């Protein structure tokens, strides 16, 4: 494989991380994916190696013809190391499942990582796009355009009644999953986060703590996504989600306002202490670092901290993950050494800016 291509891809952060975008103080990123399968072929989890192989080749050919995927890199997962796949998953380009089950899987990534396609994951093709900030329409348009380009060279499994047919009944219909990564320190602080996530579940949206190693919510980051894919058109799904997410953002803004009003000095103290720790600590585990970055992110959002920016902090959230740190320092590190390197890296980032 083009080892060098993978290295170049991974060395620079994804462009969508640092582009800002609408509501970027509260929304890190938007992700949209479409699940597609090829008519007449066995779904991935039941298919033999030879069939997976030919599905992958067919999909790859079609992707090479697609105008949207010009200037992209193809990765044969069989030729990647465990380490490389873990890095790809930290960047959210491949799923955790694909880290473990990689035989006859593949990935095609557009430079800048705004658009990518997983081959032979749960479905034959998983088209996904990322945008900075809240940009549901932009992300959908991008991925839908690629879908249109592929339709024609590939015959997608579809039924008039059930829509796009998928390996799991939960994705059938549009095959569309829209998610936004939101930062809600205000709602966590005032305790309303539970109410908000219950409310979202009522309108059939999922809320999940995010960016954590293992379980538990770290850094007040949450992922909001739709759960229904059948009986609701793509445009309605997006319109509904956009409205609900904006409502959540309004709650968060109000929470921040009242925190400032009622406990200004306490809040400011917490933010400045976090900033001080990040700029001076010598050992930081992942969880602590995320909590501190979250507080500083809030400080930037409130206009208290001006000498670092959201895009720096967003990039840091990716780079302080275990595999990225080891890539950055070009060596294999145990947890203790990683915690030291994490602190070093953050210090250097915050000094330079």
């Amino acid at each position, binding site marked *: 494989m083009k080892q060098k291509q993978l290295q170049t891809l991974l060395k620079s952060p994804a462009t969508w991380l640092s582009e800002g975008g609408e509501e970027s103080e509260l929304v890190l990123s938007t992700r949209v994916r479409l699940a597609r399968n090829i008519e007449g072929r066995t779904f991935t989890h039941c298919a033999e190696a030879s069939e997976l192989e030919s599905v992958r080749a067919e999909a790859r050919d079609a992707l090479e013809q697609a105008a949207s995927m010009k200037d992209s890199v193809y990765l044969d997962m069989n030729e990647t190391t465990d380490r490389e796949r873990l890095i790809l998953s930290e960047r959210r380009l491949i799923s955790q499942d694909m880290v473990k089950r990689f035989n006859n899987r593949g990935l095609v990534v557009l430079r800048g990582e705004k658009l990518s396609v997983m081959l032979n994951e749960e479905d034959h093709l998983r088209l996904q796009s990322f945008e900075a900030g809240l940009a549901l329409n932009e992300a959908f348009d991008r991925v839908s355009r690629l879908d249109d380009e592929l339709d024609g060279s590939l015959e997608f499994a579809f039924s008039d009644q059930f829509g796009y047919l998928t390996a799991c009944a939960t994705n059938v219909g549009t095959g569309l999953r829209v998610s936004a990564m939101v930062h809600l320190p205000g709602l966590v602080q005032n305790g309303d986060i*539970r109410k908000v996530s219950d409310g979202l579940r009522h309108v059939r949206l999922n809320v999940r703590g995010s960016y954590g190693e293992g*379980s538990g919510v770290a850094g007040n980051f949450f992922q909001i996504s739709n759960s*229904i894919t059948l*009986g609701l058109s*793509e445009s309605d799904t997006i319109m509904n989600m956009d409205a609900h997410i904006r409502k959540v953002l309004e709650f968060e803004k109000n929470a921040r306002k009242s925190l400032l009003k009622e406990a200004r000095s306490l809040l400011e103290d917490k933010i400045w202490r976090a900033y001080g720790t990040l700029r001076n600590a010598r050992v930081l585990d992942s969880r602590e670092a995320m909590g501190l970055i979250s507080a500083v992110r809030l400080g930037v959002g409130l206009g208290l901290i001006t000498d670092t920016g959201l895009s720096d902090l967003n990039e840091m959230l990716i780079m302080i993950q275990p595999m990225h740190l080891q890539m950055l320092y070009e060596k294999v590190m145990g947890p203790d050494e990683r915690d030291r390197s994490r602190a070093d890296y953050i210090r250097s980032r915050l000094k330079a800016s």
Partner: protein
Amino acid sequence: MKCQFCGKNDATIHVTNVIGNDVQKIHICQDCAETKGFDNLKKSNFEKNGFLAGLVDSSLPEKERQERRCGHCGRTYAAFSKSAGLGCSKCYDSFGDDIERVLKRIHGNARHLGKSPRRYCTEKVNARRRIRALEDELRISVDVENYERAARLRDEIADLRKGMETR
């Protein structure tokens, strides 16, 4: 329903484990789920297998359930009912009514609205889809006794039908 563990909070997570003939039900609140390690369960097995297993309860007699399989890929009904996972696109036909029931439970309905591949975008298909959407609207209008709107919808549907026949 209260949480089985703390007995205080409302249970918001309901797990049904089916192992062989053994059915185990767990009702648990968010807090206890986190402390008792059900949170991991939720991420992996629970959403995919435990949770979805409960969705397929067939009306088919036991014997037929054992023997039924997809003619195209060979996936058995038993495997499908365990995880709501399909083997190939033809399974959607092979498992007939059960699929429809499962989809209704997951999504609240079993009728696709939205994009379709170009090969399906003929005028006739579009008209048929439009008619189905209008029929849904008509039912709602009748339910809320908005007969004026219902009459308009009925006429529109009739026009579309006529258009399809003459084309």
